């Protein structure tokens, strides 16, 4: 079974040289730590930056330079800043190659819910609805099972949707799934996780074709 860093590490293997990538808050942010040497990507922060760098050295933080999670950051050589409309313009135009974000639920047809729990204070969708509606390639990083032991890979989402028919791939503590043709297609098992465990943890339609190998991290 993978911990948060394991999930991030596995997702980092999906990142290809030359990609423009948007990382959501939470596990997706950790992905940046695991991008292999020799792979050069440009991170987009939807508040208006291409070329996001690591956190600043203590004492060098700049209140005018933050990411979409409102954290102080730095820029890398070749970065550019722009306004919020252009930022979402490039997202909408499909120029951001890969979006990685968290989810509360995903359905077998690729619907995603990650912004609202009825009865709880709603903070807002931020840029998530724009990202999932626009990105060519969306990978979800999430826990497959909630704290009550219930699957979050569902036939249909029970929570209000963020977007429909958009998630392409999911990496959880248990495995890697491709979402297509109305089903979760198991691609890899997490280390030490059996196909049986994955079946129990998946409520939506699960396709297991042939032997499923354990992932190599």
């Amino acid at each position, binding site marked *: 079974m993978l911990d948060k860093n394991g999930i991030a590490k596995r997702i980092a293997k999906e990142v290809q040289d030359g990609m423009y990538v948007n990382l959501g808050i939470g596990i997706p942010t950790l992905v940046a730590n695991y991008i292999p040497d020799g792979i050069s990507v440009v991170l987009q922060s939807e508040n208006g930056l291409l070329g996001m760098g690591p956190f600043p050295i203590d004492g060098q933080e700049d209140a005018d330079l933050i990411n979409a999670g409102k954290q102080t950051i730095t820029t890398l050589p070749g970065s550019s800043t722009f*306004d919020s*409309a252009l930022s979402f313009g490039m997202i909408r135009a499909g120029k951001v190659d890969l979006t990685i974000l968290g989810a509360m639920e995903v359905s077998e047809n690729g619907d995603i819910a990650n912004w609202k729990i009825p009865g709880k204070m709603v903070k807002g969708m931020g840029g998530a609805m724009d990202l999932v509606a626009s990105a060519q390639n969306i990978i979800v990083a999430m826990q497959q099972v909630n704290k009550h032991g219930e699957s979050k890979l569902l036939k249909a989402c029970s929570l209000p949707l963020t977007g429909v028919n958009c998630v392409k791939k999911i990496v959880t503590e248990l495995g890697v799934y491709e979402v297509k043709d109305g089903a979760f297609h198991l691609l890899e098992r997490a280390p030490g996780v059996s196909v049986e465990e994955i079946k129990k943890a998946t409520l939506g339609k699960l396709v297991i074709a042939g032997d499923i190998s354990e992932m190599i991290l």
Partner: protein
Amino acid sequence: MNKVIKNAEEAVRDIEDGMTLMLGGFGLCGIPENCITALVKKGTKNLTCISNNAGVDDFGIGLMLQGKQVKKMISSYVGENAEFERQLLSGELEVELIPQGTLATRCMAAGYGMPAIFTPAGVGTEVAEGKEVRNFNGKDYLMEMAFEADFAIVKAWKGDTMGNLIYKSTARNFNPVMAMGGKITIAEVEELVPAGELDPDQIHTPGIYVHRIFQGSNYEKRIEQRTVTPKS
């Protein structure tokens, strides 16, 4: 043509109860601190505020919420604010949540004289309720209307006496699109220079969109999430 006014009090003098304002900034980054303070002091009520966020309890738009000046917030994300939550749950405050890109583009549409725009954000979700859905090239889009604001209030890094603005780093965010969206646009800047000192090619917001400008003071520039790498 000189658009320079004295200070924030003069800038907001004719903002009246019930008006709609656009307020620039993302989180606490790039917010018009001086004008918010002046609005709090003025005590204008029943405002509709179009702003990506609603500040924190004791800073930014949070100060206006403390003063119960806001009737409605139109935002994409309103966390980090206990008073906001209290007013919302008690029914004192109305909130309309909008996808961030839709919010930015609806402001921009106003500045470009476009009455409506199409975006796929929110298709198939509750955001789409009551909105026209239209298919182009096999993909569904929502038609979203341009925003109208009585006043837009923005913060820039540098500005000149003709209202030209330059923003710094990610403090740019919503400021340029809101500057274009106000019937009257107020800009507060950290440094105000005479016309001719800024490079024409580096202007982010041309002065034609800006009606009042002043050099602000005592910027706190509070950091919401101080994240650092330890010195090695």
